[in-house]
């Protein structure tokens, strides 16, 4: 296997991009990544997108977007594993370059979610849950994560305020990210008094509906050296699945797919949780960040709530988590999220994260998951 580097990343400001279409958002983003990498020709591309069919009525987007990027006839594939689509696009691009099949691969993710109304968006997202065992009972994602939150509170004594602190921290980080959808701070009080969505979760515990894309360019490390680019290597990659229905899991507070994907990535990278300097995780709901930190072994089982309360996951903490603002503040265009996490890690490792820059970081990790944890992708990066 060849060593693989990320040589370019790109992302435009996320939000309610009513004036831009799916293809416009994609092309603007992909061009930024190609510019950053200093290449204008790619060998192949991957696009992570959860549900362009339900959100904008367009399937077959891998070819469409390759065409509008001016790259046909290169091979282009759309990757779907719910909200982990972007992370999986990265993994497949990584495998393609590592295997020697291609040299320069563009990996990207995109979702244009505001062309439909809130009900339609909730339905589209809901298709990532088990339709027969969950969807037909009327439960939506806030409901599923509310069950996880309630169980975590019962089992480990996690408190409502600890959930709120995750959102407070991520908004604080997002306020320092000029590409984030929400660039403002919030308080524990404002979270606790925001509109109730699914008890115990309130609106400020939930990531928003977002239009956006992210892209990264991968190539062999040897090639990157010749190009004289700052090199961020992908040193570990893991991907795992779990039952997508909560009812089929032994313990709904435990994210087994994330644990398994993390185990693979740690083994490939020959790293341990304590080696990680910065972390981007899938905080689609505040409780998710708490559970992910436990599954990745960053904290002990049941201690995720304390981690944020003790501020170890803050920008100036022992292990900063979601320095980009996370899904909560940066936004969550589902298919794009996994690639945007890479963007943040690369910016941090290159020392280009401005106001939110973490000093002396060398190793970063990104964890992206689908649905309520039925799929997970974990990557570890190292600055050379």
């Amino acid at each position, binding site marked *: 296997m060849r060593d693989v580097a990320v040589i370019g990343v790109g992302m435009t400001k996320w939000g*309610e991009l*009513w004036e831009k279409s799916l293809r416009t958002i994609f092309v603007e983003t992909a061009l930024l990544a190609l510019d950053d990498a200093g290449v204008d020709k790619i060998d192949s591309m991957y696009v992570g997108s959860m549900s362009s069919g339900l959100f904008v009525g367009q399937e077959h987007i891998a070819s469409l977007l390759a065409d509008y990027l001016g790259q046909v006839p290169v091979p282009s594939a759309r990757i779907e594993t719910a909200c982990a689509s972007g992370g999986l696009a990265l993994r497949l691009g990584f495998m393609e370059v590592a295997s020697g099949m291609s040299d320069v691969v563009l990996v990207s993710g995109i979702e244009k979610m505001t062309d439909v*109304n*809130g009900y339609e968006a909730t339905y589209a997202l809901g298709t990532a849950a088990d339709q027969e065992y969950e969807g037909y009972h009327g439960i939506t994602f806030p409901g599923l994560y509310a069950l996880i939150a309630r169980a975590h509170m019962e089992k480990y004594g996690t408190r409502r305020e600890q959930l709120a602190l995750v959102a407070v921290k991520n908004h604080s980080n997002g306020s320092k990210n000029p590409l984030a959808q929400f660039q403002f701070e919030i308080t524990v009080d404002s979270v606790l008094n925001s*509109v109730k969505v699914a008890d115990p979760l309130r609106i400020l515990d939930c990531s928003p509906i977002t239009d956006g894309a992210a892209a990264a360019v991968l190539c062999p490390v040897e090639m990157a050296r010749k190009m004289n680019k700052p090199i961020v290597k992908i040193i570990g990659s893991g991907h795992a699945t779990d039952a997508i229905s909560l009812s089929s899991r032994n313990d709904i507070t435990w994210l087994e797919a994330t644990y398994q994907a993390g185990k693979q990535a740690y083994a490939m990278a020959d790293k341990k949780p304590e080696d990680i300097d910065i972390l981007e995780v899938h905080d689609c709901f505040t409780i998710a960040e708490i559970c992910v930190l436990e599954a990745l072994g960053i904290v002990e089982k049941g201690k995720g709530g304390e981690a944020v309360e003790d501020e170890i996951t803050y920008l100036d903490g022992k292990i900063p988590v979601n320095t980009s603002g996370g899904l909560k503040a940066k936004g969550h265009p589902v298919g794009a999220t996994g690639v945007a996490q890479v963007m943040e890690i690369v910016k941090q490792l290159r020392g280009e994260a401005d106001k939110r820059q973490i000093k002396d970081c060398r190793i970063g990790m990104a964890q992206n998951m689908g649905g309520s944890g039925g799929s997970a992708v974990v990557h570890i990066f190292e600055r050379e």
Partner: protein
Amino acid sequence: MEGIVGYGAYIPRYRIKVEEIAKVWGADAPSYKRGLMLEEKSVPSPDQDTITMSVEAAKNALKRCLINPKDIGAVYIGSESHPYAVKPSGTVLAEALGATPEVHTADFEFACKAGTEGMYVVLNLVKTEDIKYGLAVGADTSQGAPGDALEYSAAAGAAAFIFGRDNVIANVLESYSYMTDTPDFWRREYQYYPQHGGRFTGDPAYFKHIIGAAKGIMDKAGMKPSDFEYVTFHQPNGKFPFRVGKMLGFEKKQIETGWLVNKLGNTYSGSSPLGLTAILDVSKPRDKILIVSYGSGAGSDAFIFEVTKGIDKVRDLAPKTRELLDNNRCYLEYGEYAKFRQKIKKAA
């Protein structure tokens, strides 16, 4: 100079509280009240519609100017709830006032902007001396689908303005229109309830057009926010008028007088026109007033008025808007409300 010679308001006496609606749908009333700054809204009774409310408001306007109805050369009703798809509302109003048959009548429709649209046309007919007096009414019995966010605000009311050149109580210093094709809210033929683009109705719709019209008219007139005693904007909920006012540089105290929505709801074509009637009720000679409407689809009309000494003679000749809002209220339960608004129908 051309301007308003008489004005009148009408608000039905029935009300329903936000809590009563929220209770039925299992919604969180406090967050609606806090988020939208709405407490209750007016409801038309079963025998009221846009035409009957227009007649009430126009009669109040006539009381304030004491002109011969035969001298009214144009009668326009702006509404998105004209009772008939085919058959004018304006003819009934013109007949009820005794303005027929030498009168031009038309019904306007431009979502919540239709009322000020009529004002715009009447003003210009008066300016060109094509007519001596003209009447423009903004009235609606607006529709909100059961359980939709609109149900908490869609209300009923009417405001009427008679424009002329003699005995003017508020001169028009400037008028201005600003619009684009922006589909944020619509109702197709044969549909009972409108659909809307959710958050899209905010920044690219309401805020863009109101700010465009307000800045445009102030530039045209060479005026700035501090030149006005009062300002009233379209009031789809309690929050938007204050937010857009702040964005433009107005202070809360300039907005509050015409801000009726917390107790009235959104009266659509009657919304900013009713705000203007509430302001005229308390304004003094030489006060300057800015009104900016908003209609989905989308556009805004803006007018700058300067109140004259005439206001003191007519103010008390008809019921004041705040009195209509605060007095004689009758609260409905959701079931009665559903019947009144024909959301449920008795089996034949």
